[in-house]
């Protein structure tokens, strides 16, 4: 399983480096969303600082749906799906590999959005840096859910519209825990139980993905 995961992750990263969909579409979308949120809140520094954690997670969540759709579309072509199924790859390994590649891309996106928080939302840089482990936990959960639901809708004619409908409700707990945890950290405290919530969600989503990816690929 680990060999297959490394193989698939390397392949997805190579495809991203070649196609640059993250660079030219997903990251600009996330930054645009963050700027629009800042404009909606107005010039008040207090309001911007207070709204920063929630809007960061909202922007990351929305952009992660795009990234998940792109990740799923790599495998969605009929010829590709059939050929990959004949290669005998471990489905759990394929899931982990795709989730790892997606998580890496979301990390890049997260760094850019954090820079956006510093620029537009006037948050404290040192405190923002201490929220990074929290963001990594949430990104693991985002990547697991995105990969799982991406496999579910892959091959359907309505994948691009169905994916957000399925992913966003499933990620609502990540949004809440991420926002609360980051707000606590930016206020000078610790993430407390929200970090535990994110660990549990990341582990559960990853485990469910490893178990269900194969059956989903068979039926979708």
């Amino acid at each position, binding site marked *: 399983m680990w060999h*297959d995961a490394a*193989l698939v992750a390397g*392949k997805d990263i*190579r*495809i991203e480096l*070649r*196609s640059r969909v993250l660079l030219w579409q997903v990251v600009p979308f996330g930054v645009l969303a963050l700027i629009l949120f800042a404009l909606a809140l107005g010039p008040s520094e207090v309001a911007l600082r207070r709204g920063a954690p929630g809007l960061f997670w909202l922007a990351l969540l929305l952009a992660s749906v795009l990234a998940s759709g792109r990740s799923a579309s*790599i495998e969605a*072509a*009929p*010829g*590709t799906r*059939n*050929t*990959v*199924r*004949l*290669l*005998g*790859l471990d489905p759990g390994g394929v899931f982990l590999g795709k989730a790892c590649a997606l998580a890496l891309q979301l990390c890049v996106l997260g760094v850019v959005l954090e820079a956006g928080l510093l620029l537009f939302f006037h948050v404290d840089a040192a405190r923002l840096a201490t929220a990074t482990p929290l963001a990594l936990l949430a990104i693991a959960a985002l990547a697991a859910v995105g990969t799982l639901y991406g496999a579910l809708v892959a091959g359907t004619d309505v994948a691009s519209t169905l994916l957000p409908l399925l992913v966003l409700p499933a990620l609502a707990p990540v949004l809440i825990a991420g926002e609360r945890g980051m707000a606590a950290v930016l206020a000078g405290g610790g993430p407390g139980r929200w970090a535990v919530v994110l660990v549990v969600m990341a582990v559960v989503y990853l485990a469910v993905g490893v178990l269900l990816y194969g059956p989903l690929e068979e039926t979708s």
Partner: protein
Amino acid sequence: MAPAITLRSAVALLGRFPALAGVDLDVEEGSVLAALGSNGAGKTTLLHLLAGLLPMRSGTGTVLGCDLATDRAPLRRRVGLLGHHLSLYPDLSASENLIFALRAAGLDRALAAPSLERVGLTGRLATAPARELSAGQQRRMGLASLIARRPSLWLLDEPHAGLDGAGRDLCDELVDEAARGGATVVLTSHEKDRAASCADQMVTLTGGAVSASEAGARQLHVA
């Protein structure tokens, strides 16, 4: 020769539509079967059933000793399919695609270069993104994958489509080599004469069932 494929009253659905409606088929190991028929006759569905990609709704079937009802996963690793579409990732080159397939199958990546060379994909054709290759060159890429992986069962969906004259001859040559090496080949075609020249046995599918069966020229030639 042992039977490589045995189907009895095999039914397979595409959605709710019975694309295969009771197919009986026997194919010996190391032989070449050509499935003929008009569009929608069930040729591609037959290949997908034999590859273990499609479940059998009713009937019985064994392919390479694997029961199609229960052993589809182990069967797939022994099957190579050349379909209508580009077989792997358009953003990767032919060489990268082939190396990925070889590593996934646990094979040596060094097999990629000679296989690509055999089908004429060398130099820039091997290193450019696959999306930049013509349809015929993409088909050659699929053939290279079969040469490198050497599956026990070759399933070729209209393999001559999109190929130029030299490519068609190369395809026939590879089919013959594979069969002589012990692999079983099932190919579909609209061109009876072309298919007959490289097949031991031909069946015609009509409405998802075998309506006619006859010997191919390859068998006659050998005899």
